[in-house]
């Protein structure tokens, strides 16, 4: 009897297949999990501790993309160096650009640093459609989650109410966390910091910190001696005590700078998985905010 039931179960299979989601980053993957719950299976391609500009378009990624019902991308040319060959080689018509299973998460978010006027490579590796690190503002995270919720509801209309409920729950938890983060950061509003790459404009704007310089002379260009000397001068004049660095950059130059200026080099997680504590989207900000607050306490004495 049991065997018969098992065989029938195997033959029939699961009642409804989960939507297979592939997200280019762990941040988008985390938001898809928040909204999709057990109605989706989610794979993230780039790890949170690797530079999302430089990801190898590995054939193992082709396999993931070939099976996807939904491909969620950061967009704004963040993945331009590695995603197009994966999409072309996927043999998956659903997730081709413009297809029903292709979702650019940047469609409804607040984008900063959109260049104006003439853009040339003399400006470094600029993103003509604006800074793509927009997920580092929780308000944008909410908008991304909403966009994902709408897309999942479109792909699986029977689960619309489930996705709505999951989104509402995430929204509530995020709002509560935002109050916490805002309160923790409030004493440091206006504090000047330096960052290695332009990964943090949304984060800094959201929490009221003022980025006064970058370790990179131009986006994507490694530090030069002359720029480093100028930056040290600027930091001394502005009494800047904090350099924020992504986990994939060399700490040698930032540490050499803080040796001259005093203060700290702070490695933050730019993405979910960027540190072992940042296990999901809310956890990412929990980690980054608490790390920044602890460092600002030490360096400013507030």
């Amino acid at each position: 009897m049991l065997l018969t039931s098992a065989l029938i179960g195997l033959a029939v299979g699961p009642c409804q297949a989960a939507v297979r989601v592939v997200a280019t980053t762990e941040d988008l993957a985390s938001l898809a999990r928040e909204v999709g719950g057990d109605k989706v299976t989610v794979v993230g391609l780039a790890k949170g501790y690797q530079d999302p500009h430089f990801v190898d378009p590995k054939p193992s990624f082709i396999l993931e993309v070939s099976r996807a019902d939904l491909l969620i991308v950061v967009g704004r040319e963040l993945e331009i160096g590695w995603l197009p060959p994966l999409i072309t080689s996927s043999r998956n018509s659903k997730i081709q650009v413009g297809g029903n299973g292709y979702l650019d998460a940047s469609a409804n978010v607040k984008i900063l640093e959109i260049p104006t006027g003439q853009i040339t490579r003399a400006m470094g590796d600029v993103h003509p459609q604006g800074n793509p690190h927009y997920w580092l503002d929780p308000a944008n995270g909410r908008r991304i989650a909403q966009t994902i919720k709408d897309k999942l509801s479109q792909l699986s209309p029977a689960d619309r109410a489930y996705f709505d409920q999951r989104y509402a729950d995430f929204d509530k938890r995020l709002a509560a966390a935002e109050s916490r983060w805002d309160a923790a950061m409030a004493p440091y509003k206006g504090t000047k910091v330096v960052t290695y790459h332009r990964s943090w404009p949304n984060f800094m704007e959201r929490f009221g910190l003022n980025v006064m310089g970058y370790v990179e002379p131009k986006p994507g260009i490694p530090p030069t001696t002359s720029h480093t000397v100028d930056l040290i001068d600027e930091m001394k004049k502005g009494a800047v005590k904090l350099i924020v660095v992504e986990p994939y950059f060399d700490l040698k130059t930032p540490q050499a700078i803080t040796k001259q200026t005093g203060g700290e080099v702070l490695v933050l997680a730019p993405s979910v998985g960027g540190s072992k504590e940042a296990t999901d989207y809310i956890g990412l900000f929990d980690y980054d905010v608490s790390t920044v607050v602890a460092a600002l306490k030490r360096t400013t004495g507030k």
Partner: protein
Amino acid sequence: MQPIRLLYVCLVTAFCLTAPAVASAQDDPQALRKEVDQLKADFETLRQGYAERLAALEARLAAMPAAAPEGAQVPQAPAAAAGSSKVFNPDISVIGNFAGAAGDNPLSDQPALSLSEVEAAFQAVVDPYARADFFLSASPEGLEVEEANITFTSLPAGLLLKVGKMRAQFGKVNAMHTHILPWTDRPLVLHNLFGGDEGVSDSGASLSKLIPNRFMFLDAIGEVYLGASDVFHSEARSELNYLGRLRGYRDLTEGTNLDLGVSFAHGPSALSPGFDAQRIGMDATFRYRPLRRAIYRQLVGRAEGVWSREELVSGLQQHSSGFYGSVDYQFARRWFAGVRGDRSGRPLDDLHDSGGSLSLTFRPSEFSLIRGQYRRTHYGEDVTADELLFQLNFSIGAHGAHPF
């Protein structure tokens, strides 16, 4: 509620216009009343229908994603105002390759200094079913279409079809454009046995299919070409060049992977007219790139072997083979060093060439590189050449995909 109000006006007007005619046609007041009641009922049904549709529309509007937040800057396509022809322009890039050589080599015709190639690339999506890629190459030998093909990305059964002119998927290096090679030159074995300095690029079709399995990425490729290259040359429509390749890939760890391939090519010989030629290739690539340090460190080991069979006269066959092995290591964000060993026979005789190279590459940015290479070659004619080769590669325009 405006559509409903408009509907009222239309119906009342229509009723007023038709009423006298109805009255004159039907003098019976009861029939008239019945007709008016019918009209009222029809109108009520219509009104209800429109009200429901309007409510549904309002609900859909409310469910749509919120408009861009205040302060958000969603960029417009820059050329939108200038007309659709510019919006749909392909991604365009131009890559220049400047090469230099020093030292004696009586068997090489490479000049001391030359702009060896300018490649212009035009790439875009054709329609929902395909994309197209054009690569035009200008060199001292003239202008040629290096590749021009359409790739059908939405075929059933996991198939990928490419049609046009393209680089043959034989081994690893032949499919690479000159500017993404990790050296200033192509290895001896490919130079001798598979297409000289430029490799094999021909008109034809390439069909590939992923073979599902639990263990690895497995891609089977079948290609057919006209036969207009330095290896295969067709003089009749019935003579074509056929090529097959099986590629397996597997991640060993998060930062290491192994890529293996076997290739086979058969067609009318370009070197021995009137006879067929075969090539068999095997290739292996090992990559190590720790993800946390991916922009500073990587190591790529490559090895490729080619076996060649040519028929010199009926019944007399010449078998040749060769290989190369190389290791390229990135030791700083912008610096790469490489070493390569070469050995190769020649397709039509028993002579063997061998050599080795050391290279050093500096990449100021993603869009340019400067490379120096010391190459020592011992030719079958008992000539040894020591050369210093130089390459300056630079690109402008659209950001291309990183080579893998």
